[in-house]
């Protein structure tokens, strides 16, 4: 019964999406006297009820996984009664159908939030936005109901489930995909708003202020999702790297790049009424990138280390949706954007100018990543197999990232509209001195690769420059949103520092070690004490016990494992990490050689953790920015409603008593 209710809820939600679309579109057609179309009143309630239904459907699927309802095909093929409860629950979205249901659940929920609480937009723009949102949701309902029904029953219930990919039995999976999904969906709201504003030609600061929290929120979630995903790949895959330029990683990076540009652009639109077309363009682009990511990941047109359940037919369905939404959006953009009045002008040397420069650089990096990701697809059409990796991505993106980081250091110090370099002599000199000084200092101690070296110099300059906007201000008076910017920019410096250190100073050792043997790396002595078999709930493993002594001090025991899961049979490598304030020791156990020695791989990665600390700081900065904006907004609303109240009181008084003479 439960599954049937879930399915019915989905169909009803889909029907409401149609109503939302039609009713929202009706809002665009006003009567001859300018009165609202009577159909238009249904759009908001349809969105709200739809949100409840879609979320209900997801909760019902969650329940089916929690109790391991093996009469459901999805549960039987992706879960197992012996799995720990937490992983049963995360298994709900650890598969194609469940994750698509989560997608539409979040999509409908954000549509509901928008319809329920957003009152600042003109009703026509709101109607158009909800129509677009309903149209997008409808496509995904169709995809779920026609091509990937999560509630499909088995003719005969299975006796036991066939498990979940053991690599995914990890707390990282509980957080990483839903975070990214919520981010993607947030961008879909930004997309709907952009299309709504484009359709009604109401691209103005008021619209930007409505769009901004959605973009910021989505951006925060993408930032945290990518950070978590990167750390997960780092410790779970056991390869010691933190970014592999894999198509699936790129699929999450591209929307982030577009969202970063969009976030800055929408701020300019809100504050200065400039960059109107840019903002619309980036709004469409950001959502295109998340849909493109979904397509690349789910269709299997590209080969990746991430083995998703790929299916060309589903790929064709997503490609169809992509063509419909993105093709449609770009067509409307081409037809309409010329009619959007030009925004305010500004000098090249101004805060707006710096932001435009950085947006162009971000877009260029996006183009580089997109080209690198799709290039194998292009060459395969001519039967040539290529693999594009770090030798292309690193230098090609650095060409644009380096000027971007330099401008990023200066940008927040510039004034809006126009500025003079003479005013910033001290700051410019400081930034230049830091970049050159740090590079010279590090080069003095040894020869290091160029990119990490530049990274170190830029990180130092950026860390200081990020704090400069606070100079000479009363810290208690600085708006929360500004703190957010400072923190996020500082986070970029921290992250960059971690990347550069990892690139420049990492040490690696691969050794065959007999039990009792010791290997030295940096100032750590690693002794193999014992190798023992251990068993978990659904796996067995060989576990090495390694005693790590730093400078001959007290030993710390690390226990890397080579695990074998039996349902389905698969082996994974569980790395063991020793985290110090200045880096991580990363140990992986390999196979046993003929002579009984064990292969042990050890890395010392100085300051590698700063990559993810930086990511967290960036995310935290984003959260502060959202909080600051919402706070200002709430205060404004309260003031406005107080004002209304007073005016109403005055009017009531005025009706009773004669007006006082001015």
């Amino acid at each position: 019964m439960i599954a049937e209710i879930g399915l019915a809820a989905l169909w009803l939600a889909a029907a409401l999406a149609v109503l939302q679309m039609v009713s929202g579109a009706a809002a665009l057609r006003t009567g001859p006297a300018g009165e609202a179309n009577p159909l238009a009143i249904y759009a908001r309630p349809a969105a709200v009820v739809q949100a409840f239904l879609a979320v209900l459907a997801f909760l019902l699927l969650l329940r089916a996984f929690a109790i391991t309802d093996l009469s459901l095909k999805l549960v039987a093929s992706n879960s197992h009664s012996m799995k720990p409860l937490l992983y049963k629950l995360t298994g709900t979205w650890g598969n194609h159908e469940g994750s698509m249901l989560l997608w539409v659940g979040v999509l409908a929920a954000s549509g509901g939030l928008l319809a329920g609480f957003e009152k600042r937009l003109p009703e026509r723009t709101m109607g158009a936005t909800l129509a677009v949102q309903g149209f997008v949701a409808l496509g995904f309902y169709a995809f779920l109901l026609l091509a990937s029904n999560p509630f499909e029953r088995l003719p005969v219930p299975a006796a036991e489930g066939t498990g979940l990919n053991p690599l995914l039995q990890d707390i990282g999976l509980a957080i990483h995909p839903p975070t990214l999904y919520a981010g993607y969906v947030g961008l879909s709201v930004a997309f709907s708003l952009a299309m709504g504003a484009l359709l009604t030609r109401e691209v103005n600061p008021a619209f930007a202020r409505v769009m901004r929290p959605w973009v910021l929120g989505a951006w925060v979630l993408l930032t945290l999702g990518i950070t978590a995903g990167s750390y997960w790949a780092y410790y779970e895959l056991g390869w010691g790297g933190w970014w592999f330029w894999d198509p699936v990683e790129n699929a999450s990076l591209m929307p982030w790049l577009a969202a970063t540009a969009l976030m800055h652009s929408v701020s300019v639109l809100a504050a200065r009424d400039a960059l109107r077309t840019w903002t619309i363009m980036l709004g469409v682009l950001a959502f295109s990138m998340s849909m493109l990511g979904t397509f690349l990941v789910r269709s299997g047109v590209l080969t990746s280390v991430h083995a998703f359940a790929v299916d060309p037919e589903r790929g064709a369905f997503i490609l169809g949706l992509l063509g419909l939404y993105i093709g449609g959006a770009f067509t409307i953009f081409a037809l309409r954007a010329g009619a959007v009045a030009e925004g305010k002008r500004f000098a090249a040397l101004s805060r707006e100018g710096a932001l435009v420069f950085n947006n162009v650089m971000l877009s260029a990096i996006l183009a580089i990543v997109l080209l690198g990701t799709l290039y194998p697809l292009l060459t395969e059409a001519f039967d040539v197999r290529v693999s594009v990796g770090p030798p292309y991505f690193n230098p090609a993106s650095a060409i644009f990232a380096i000027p971007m980081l330099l401008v990023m250091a200066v940008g927040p110090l510039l004034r809006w509209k126009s500025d003079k370099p003479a005013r910033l002599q001290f700051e410019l000199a400081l930034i230049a001195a830091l970049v050159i000084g740090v590079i010279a200092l590090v080069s003095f101690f040894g020869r290091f690769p160029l990119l990490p070296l530049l990274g170190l110099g830029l990180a130092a300059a950026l860390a200081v420059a990020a704090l400069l906007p606070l100079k000479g201000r009363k810290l208690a008076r600085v708006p929360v949103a500004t703190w957010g910017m400072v923190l996020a920019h500082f986070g970029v410096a921290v992250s960059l520092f971690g990347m550069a250190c990892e690139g420049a100073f990492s040490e690696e050792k691969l050794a065959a070690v007999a039990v009792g043997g010791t290997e030295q790396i940096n100032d750590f002595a690693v002794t193999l004490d014992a190798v023992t078999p251990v068993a978990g709930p659904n796996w067995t493993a060989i576990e090495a016990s390694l005693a790590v002594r730093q400078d001959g001090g007290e030993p710390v025991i690390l226990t890397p494992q080579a695990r074998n899961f039996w349902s389905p049979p698969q082996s994974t490598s569980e790395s063991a990490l020793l985290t110090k304030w200045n880096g991580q020791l990363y140990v992986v156990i390999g196979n046993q050689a003929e002579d009984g020695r064990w292969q042990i791989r050890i890395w010392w990665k100085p300051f590698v953790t700063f990559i993810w600390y930086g990511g967290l700081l960036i995310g935290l900065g984003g959260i502060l920015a959202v909080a600051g904006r919402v706070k200002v907004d709430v205060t404004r609303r309260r003031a406005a409603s107080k004002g209304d109240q007073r005016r109403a009181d005055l009017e009531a008084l005025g009706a009773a008593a004669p007006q006082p003479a001015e």
Partner: protein
Amino acid sequence: MRSVYLWVPLALFAFFAGLAAYMLTQEKDQFVESTMIGQPLPEFALDPAYAGLPGAAKADFTGKPRLLNIWASWCLPCIAEAPQLEALQKQGVEIVGIAIRDRPEDVANFLAKYGNPYSRIGSDAISEVQLAIGSSGVPETFVIDGKGVIRYQHIGDIRESDVAKLLAELEKAR
């Protein structure tokens, strides 16, 4: 002039969508063929994988074409291909096995359970020979001619429909 630029995103997108649609309809070949085809086998001499049969070495591949089967007792598709290997052996094909990362007792159990079509089985505990002949997974089967040259590579388990093809390749290598 400005309005022309506004069409650029749509044009780029249309190009991508067309390419992706074309690629979706193409049969995807997931196999990576060994570049060792046409080359002589690398030098190797492996210890026996269990007590029942001798080990395998490059020197064994003389006189007539043979199959070289890369397998392991822990590999499920290897169970699936066992009947086809038996059928090939019944037709007079000599099959040399290389057991990858295996243990003698597991090898013996596997052969007792699923049949033993091999004339020799070498033990490759660290995938040394496997990598040297350009095999990227288990199971894989190579046709080696009488001079020790690799002539053909079959990737994945041998299905019933593949038996004829392998026999033909063996005949070609003669």
